């Protein structure tokens, strides 16, 4: 690996306009200033404009991979398109050395009516691969796409994954000095994604400088040497890949606690007054503890308690069980009391979630209590670059709980 710098980006900025009509009109104005030669770097924003890319600087050397991450609509693709020379910067300067290839869209130029075979030639031509080269490698391309039986069918009969397969198979035969990869591979199935990532790894070995956009943090962690985190309002370069990924993940923590749901807090006979999730740093093997303090005017035998710790959108769970799972008999006694719940050895899978606690009367004939409480886990980057989540409840979570306790009566 040599020290040749292939990309130099200096103070790059790009404006964007949300209103379509206005955007088109600015286009006409820019056109006139470009043709008259008066166009230069512009500092001021026109009405309705904002900086989509604001003052970014970085360099990329041979064999290096920059992971470009950030939420949807934060300007990642815009940045790639400026680097690829599709659109002009509004401020700053980009120097590109060597042949650049961008995988922003796969299967560009495909005609849905024509067959896969015909489209391979068209797509290759769009990417600048001459026909003679495609002729030589045609069988390899078909082989790599993994869809030889469909190669003579019109592309419109393909699934989106198949289109991407064919598109990537063509693009994979390029050997650029610089490769820009947008989130294009996500449509393919796992086997194909692996093929693609191996191809990217191969290019990296050969010294190709890569800018990789992905929402898959595992991919980012595996290939990147550095991270450029592009959020709508900030842009930060991280030399430490784990740190960059954590900063990205923290963007999605719901700080306003709007997910806090109190669906049912006690009945006429049973009042819950203290809900406590113990905020502390846990190590593997430690218990995660919840206690519900109550005042009851009656006694209830054989109650059931459901405890679940699910991801924020309930798509996945870290833990779920009821006392019946463990053959525990629980009861609410007349007067003051508390229900103490311990979840042993919790191993969360990602940084945020909600603890859902439900208390039922015997045989679930009535609900006594149901809250969903947001909790946060702090990720600790591991040495291999992968992220391991230690069970850490941060202070914000605790503050909310103490706060809600006073409101819970």
């Amino acid at each position, binding site marked *: 690996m040599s020290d040749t710098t292939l990309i130099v980006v200096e103070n790059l900025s790009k404006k964007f306009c949300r209103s379509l009509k206005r955007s088109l009109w600015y286009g*006409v104005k820019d056109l006139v200033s*470009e043709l008259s*030669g008066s166009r230069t770097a512009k500092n001021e924003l026109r009405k309705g404009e904002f900086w989509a890319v604001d003052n970014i600087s970085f360099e990329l050397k041979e064999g290096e991979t920059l992971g470009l991450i950030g939420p949807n609509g934060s300007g990642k693709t815009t940045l790639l398109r400026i680097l690829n020379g*599709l659109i002009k910067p509004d401020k700053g300067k980009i*120097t590109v*050395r060597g042949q650049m290839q961008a995988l922003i869209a796969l299967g560009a130029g495909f005609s849905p009516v024509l067959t896969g075979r015909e489209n391979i030639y*068209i797509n290759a031509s769009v990417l600048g691969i*001459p026909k003679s080269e495609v002729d030589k490698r045609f069988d390899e391309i078909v082989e790599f796409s993994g869809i030889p039986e469909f190669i003579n069918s019109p592309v419109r009969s393909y699934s989106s994954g198949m289109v991407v397969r064919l598109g990537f198979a063509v693009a994979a035969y390029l050997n650029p000095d610089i490769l820009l990869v947008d989130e294009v591979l996500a449509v393919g199935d796992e086997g194909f994604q692996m093929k693609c990532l191996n191809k990217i790894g191969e290019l990296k070995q050969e010294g190709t400088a890569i800018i990789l956009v992905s929402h898959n943090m595992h991919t980012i962690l595996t290939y990147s040497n550095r991270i450029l985190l592009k959020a709508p309002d900030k842009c930060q370069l991280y030399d430490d890949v784990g740190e960059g990924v954590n900063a990205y993940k923290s963007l999605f923590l719901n700080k306003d606690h709007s997910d806090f749901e109190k669906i049912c807090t006690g009945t006429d006979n049973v009042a819950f007054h203290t809900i406590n999730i113990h905020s502390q740093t846990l190590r593997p093997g430690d218990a995660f503890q919840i206690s519900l303090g109550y005042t009851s005017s009656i006694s209830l035998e054989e109650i059931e308690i459901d405890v679940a710790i699910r991801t924020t959108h309930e798509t996945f769970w870290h833990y779920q069980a009821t006392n019946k799972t463990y053959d525990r008999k629980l009861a609410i006694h007349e007067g003051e009391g508390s229900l103490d719940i311990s979840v042993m050895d919790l191993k969360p899978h990602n940084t945020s979630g909600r603890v859902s606690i439900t208390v039922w009367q015997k045989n679930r004939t009535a609900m006594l209590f149901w809250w969903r409480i947001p909790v946060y886990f702090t990720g600790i980057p591991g040495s291999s670059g992968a992220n391991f989540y230690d069970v850490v409840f941060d202070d914000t979570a605790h503050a909310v709980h103490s706060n809600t306790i006073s409101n819970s009566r």
Partner: protein
Amino acid sequence: MKKQLSEVIYTPESLVRNPVKLVQSMFQDLMAARELAWRLAVRDISTKYRESVLGLLWAFIPPILAGIVFIFLHNKKVVDFGDVGMPYAVFAFVGTTLWQSFVESINSPLQVVNSAKPMLAKINFPREALIISAFYQSLFGLLIKSLLLGAIVIYFDINVSIISVLFIVPAILLVLLGIIIGLLLTPLGALYSDVSSSVLVFTQFLFFLTPVVYAPPTTYPYSLLASANPVSPFLNAARDILVLGTINNLTLVIIASTILLMILFAGWLIYRLAMPIIIERISA
């Protein structure tokens, strides 16, 4: 072994400020665009015909229908089209066929660019390829229509010589004129759909301002329709060579061709400078 890396620099400044580099890159890209242009043309033509039953017949139907209307008007003496110097039916059919080629070539660049928008927004390929592809497609249309022209000449038993084949030269220039008009309209047309709508209206209007179905007027100021109208010299030259084997406005054709090539270069320059700005506006 260390290979020599090419270097490209992108800045906000207008490219016009460095004209030598600009023109250099234009011709580099033109060279690089050749194969792609051909491929895109083949793609669009095969796509068009694969979904069609009548296929090539669609190239013949509009000029034949238009021709029939004017032949009817002429034969019934509803309108006097003047002395056209050849059987009127031949004059009208050849005229409307050539006109149709011209109109299709005006629309072609904008159509090709508009349908390539998703590709333009995401891939850096020589933008010239689209216009050349539009030119190829219009040429293909002209070749198909030449079959119709040949059929007309044979059907009406016109005495043609080998020279008649040369009609293709002014006919190609006619198509090129259409492409250039289309090219000039493309930057604005890619932003605003008003442009393609107005082309529709404008070409219908232009049809009557061009001696397509009537003899070129000789008295001033009406003679301007034949001399100042850029379409007339090429259309008339093509028709005269095909049917009569002569050309009576050679000087005019040469002058018009020279102007045409200059405008072509200007149009190309504008198109090229406009592309990044258009791409910025047409895609999110």
